[in-house]
């Protein structure tokens, strides 16, 4: 089947307004919380106020006696009180791990805020009042709050199998020989904080018992496939649970693991009534999941000519109290550990450790953001150590198409890093003089981030594309739309294939029972996977419709194309409208729809001893450059200029691509300067948006966004993913700019005024 080519594109690459935008701008969109049902109960979660304790007694009798309370559940009421996360391919050291979480704490709590009981009541106020009446007696247990301490054999153990839940390694060449061949060795230890996704829409869902005993939950989730988790906890057949994802108010990885859906499922199952559960902002911040703090020791050997002779790194990741996706996040970190650079001798060791802190898991950049702060700070430090321009040093070492990363991950497609770095750097423009009391500095970072799931997980996405009897097109696909324009991009692809306006296409998304499953909106995979599924189904349907038109018009299919809602003869007068074509298909028994599955290329499991092998289907590369102004008196850092440049392969919607790049840079700016979930002995101390600081419009400068299109990538028409990659270079670029401004290397995020001021003071002669 002949594909459409870029020169023919009428829709792809344009700034067509997103399909979902109009409703959002007019306040019409019904998010998960904008939905209620008669007789709906309001749920609350009773949570642990200890980070590590044995549950001696949980007495719900007073709460149950409160008028208006309809249901209270504790661990004993949960049919199967365990949630599993299958984490494939564990190292031989640790053994196969089935990461498990208790749904409700049975006899022990391992983190502050761990759920102990569920309450459903006639009103939210009654549920809240009842929460205060549940009596819980704890016996405090020793806790451990630092992953390094947790690795000691005498440390309090969170699980019988020990606190270390994952170890991965990468081995290539001989690092000792590499360091011996180096002129300079640069070694630093870097630290990154817990951070919160801080989507503006908190975790929320409404569930009800639908016909035929199907528990249906309309929930803000990135993963409608969690219907299986709800069913497993309830001991129901999978077909008896249905998850619907409406448009979501932001996810960023924080709505990837199970949040409210299992609790709602339990309460609907127990009461038979509709149930709503909305987290408060405080609950959203203190409950799982967060981004992993990493402690990273990096050692680079370089020659004076700019060759990197060896990279050695050691990562320790704080998994919090339960594994969730920690082993996978660490695996991603291993693959990304050297950055987009070639090096013959590499040795990396990573360990993920349980502590009594809030559990950590997926966060935009999934294991690629933390190492980027390390390796890009190192690249800057190495360049300075050999008195080479940081850009020139990077250019000398960028990996090229056709080569492999040090872990053996092949680089199949174009690598435009040199262009991205130069374009971003040039976009900063000429330097100005620093205002009095301020120092200006500039920095750059180049990074890579994978997109698509691990190749041995056999990822797939399915799409249904149908020509309606009136000549319009319907798409059905189980994609949750987090706000990135996931659904609209699929509509735009469909519009291109059938050459009709986007307004002639309706898309149904995010229903685990009624739309073909398309996999998770995670891993920057939806444009790649579901874009490819829609492309496949659409092109197949197009081919079938052209054949049908060929038989009706008596013109060879090769001489036909689509335009303006009709099949038309190329250089000819014959045409048949989509409406007539649909009728013709019905009469002759030809299908007016296609259900197609796109399978990502599968691969063998990597070598666990050496970390060598292909892990990801594809990679996205880009650079960001920033200018900062550092206040000499206070250490406060302000970003005055920011330029971001990526090769996205192929633009589907230009506004959406730029939106991801701008929003990603702003999120990276928060990671660099202000964001930190502070925990003291496991107790969250920043449980609101007044203490947990995400960037405001005053903090983010105007962003220069430069989009490159190599035409090479695994997605539809050569597209690559951009959602996660967009936030990764910002923090190291800012840290490098601070070094440029004040001559001090900050190794711990965020770069708070206090840290910068202290570092400047300590470095003063």
């Amino acid at each position: 089947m002949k594909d459409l080519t870029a020169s023919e594109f009428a829709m792809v690459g344009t700034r067509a307004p997103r399909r979902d935008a109009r409703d959002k701008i007019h306040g019409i969109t019904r998010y998960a919380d904008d939905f209620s049902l008669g007789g709906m109960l309001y749920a609350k979660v009773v949570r642990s106020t200890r980070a590590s304790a044995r549950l001696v007694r949980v007495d719900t009798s007073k709460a149950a006696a409160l008028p208006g309370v309809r249901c209270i559940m504790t661990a004993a009421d949960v049919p199967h009180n365990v949630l599993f996360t299958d984490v494939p391919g564990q190292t031989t050291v640790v053994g196969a791990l089935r990461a498990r979480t208790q749904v409700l704490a049975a006899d022990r709590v391992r983190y502050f805020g761990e759920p102990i009981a569920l309450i459903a009541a006639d009103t939210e106020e009654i549920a809240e009042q009842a929460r205060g009446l549940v009596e819980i007696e704890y016996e405090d247990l020793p806790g451990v709050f630092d992953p390094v301490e947790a690795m000691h054999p005498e440390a309090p153990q969170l699980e019988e199998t020990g606190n270390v839940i994952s170890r991965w390694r990468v081995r290539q060449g001989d690092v000792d020989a590499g360091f011996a061949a180096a002129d300079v060795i640069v070694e630093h230890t870097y630290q990154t904080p817990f951070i919160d996704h801080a989507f503006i829409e908190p975790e929320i869902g409404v569930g009800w018992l639908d016909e035929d005993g199907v528990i249906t939950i309309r929930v803000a989730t990135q993963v409608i496939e969690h219907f299986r988790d709800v069913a497993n906890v309830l001991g129901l057949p999978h077909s008896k649970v249905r998850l619907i994802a409406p448009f979501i108010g932001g996810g960023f990885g924080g709505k990837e693991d199970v949040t409210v859906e299992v609790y709602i499922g339990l309460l609907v199952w127990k009461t038979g009534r509709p149930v709503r559960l909305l987290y408060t902002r405080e609950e959203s911040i203190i409950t799982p999941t967060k981004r992993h703090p990493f402690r990273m020791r990096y050692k680079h050997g370089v020659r004076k000519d700019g060759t990197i002779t060896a990279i050695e790194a050691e990562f320790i990741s704080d998994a919090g109290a339960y594994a969730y996706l920690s082993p996978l996040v660490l695996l991603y970190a291993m693959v990304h550990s050297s950055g987009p650079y070639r090096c013959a001798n590499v040795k990396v060791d990573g360990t993920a450790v349980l502590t009594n802190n809030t559990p950590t898991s997926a966060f935009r950049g999934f294991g690629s953001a933390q190492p980027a702060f390390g390796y890009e700070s190192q690249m800057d430090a190495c360049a300075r150590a050999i008195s080479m321009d940081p850009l020139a040093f990077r250019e000398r070492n960028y990996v090229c198409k056709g080569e492999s990363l040090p872990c053996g991950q092949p680089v199949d497609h174009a690598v435009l890093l040199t262009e991205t770095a130069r374009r971003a750097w040039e976009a900063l423009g000429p330097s100005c003089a620093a205002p009095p009391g301020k120092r200006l500095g500039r920095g750059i970072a180049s990074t890579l981030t994978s997109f698509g799931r691990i190749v041995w997980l056999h990822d797939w996405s399915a799409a249904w594309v149908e020509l309606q009897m009136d000549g319009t097109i319907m798409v059905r696909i189980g994609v949750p739309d987090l706000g990135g324009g996931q659904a609209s991009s699929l509509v735009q692809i469909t519009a291109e294939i059938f050459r009709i306006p986007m307004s002639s296409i309706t898309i149904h998304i995010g229903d685990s029972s009624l739309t073909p499953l398309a996999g998770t909106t995670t891993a920057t995979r939806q444009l790649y996977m579901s874009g490819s599924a829609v492309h496949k189904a659409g092109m197949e349907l197009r081919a079938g419709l052209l054949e049908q038109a060929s038989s009706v018009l008596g013109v060879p299919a090769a001489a036909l194309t689509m335009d303006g809602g009709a099949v038309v003869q190329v250089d000819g007068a014959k045409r048949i409208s989509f409406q007539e074509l649909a009728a013709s298909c019905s009469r002759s028994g030809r299908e007016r729809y296609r259900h197609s599955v796109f399978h990502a290329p599968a691969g063998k499991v990597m070598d666990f001893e050496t970390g060598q092998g292909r892990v990801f289907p594809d990679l996205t590369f880009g650079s960001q450059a920033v200018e900062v102004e550092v206040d000499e008196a206070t250490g406060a850092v302000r970003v005055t200029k920011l330029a971001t440049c990526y090769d996205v392969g192929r633009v589907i919607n230009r506004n959406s691509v730029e939106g991801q790049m701008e929003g990603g840079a702003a999120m990276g700016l928060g990671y660099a300067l202000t964001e930190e979930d502070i925990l003291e002995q496991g107790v969250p101390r920043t449980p609101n948006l007044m203490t947990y600081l995400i960037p405001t419009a005053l903090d983010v400068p105007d962003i220069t966004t430069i989009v490159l299109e190599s035409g090479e990538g695994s997605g539809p028409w050569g597209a690559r993913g951009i959602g996660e990659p967009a936030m990764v270079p910002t923090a190291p670029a800012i840290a490098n700019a601070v070094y440029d401004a004040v001559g001090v290397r900050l190794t711990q995020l965020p770069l708070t005024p206090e840290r910068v001021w202290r570092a400047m003071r300590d470095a003063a002669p």
Partner: protein
Amino acid sequence: MSASRMEERVSQRTISFTLNGQPMRLEINPHETLLHVLRERAAAAEVKSGCERGDCGACAVLVDGRGVNSCLTLAVQVDGKAVTTVRGLGTPDAPHPLQAAFLEQGAAQCGFCIPGMLVTLQAFLSERPAPTRAEIREAIAGNLCRCTGYHKILDAAETAARQMRAVQA
């Protein structure tokens, strides 16, 4: 009748206000926030709840043309006043210039902050029709957005301000 029920009865208040021009008359409890009353009793689901403590701006509405966080406003305070939400700015067929610019320039992503952002900008532009970009930043500093990085929001606000001035000129 129990003491608590009697108390509830005694403390109920009736308030009248307009919501996007429509007259409303509601029995409320004096402790209820405007956010709660709008969402739960006035079917104004377009008013978003993000933090319920005035930190995020998602719940912003206009009261007599002035922007307020409805989570920090008691419903009794709007008695006799005009409340405007994003649905009072324009309709899909007749959008407000801000809404048209937000659509064209891709300023909305997840969209959850947008209703609050738009009414805040409307109140601001009606007082300052020719603002600098820095002044617009200041005006929306209390409206948090996690998706866009604010760039396209600022672009759209500038475009809308220009169009609104052109219409008035």
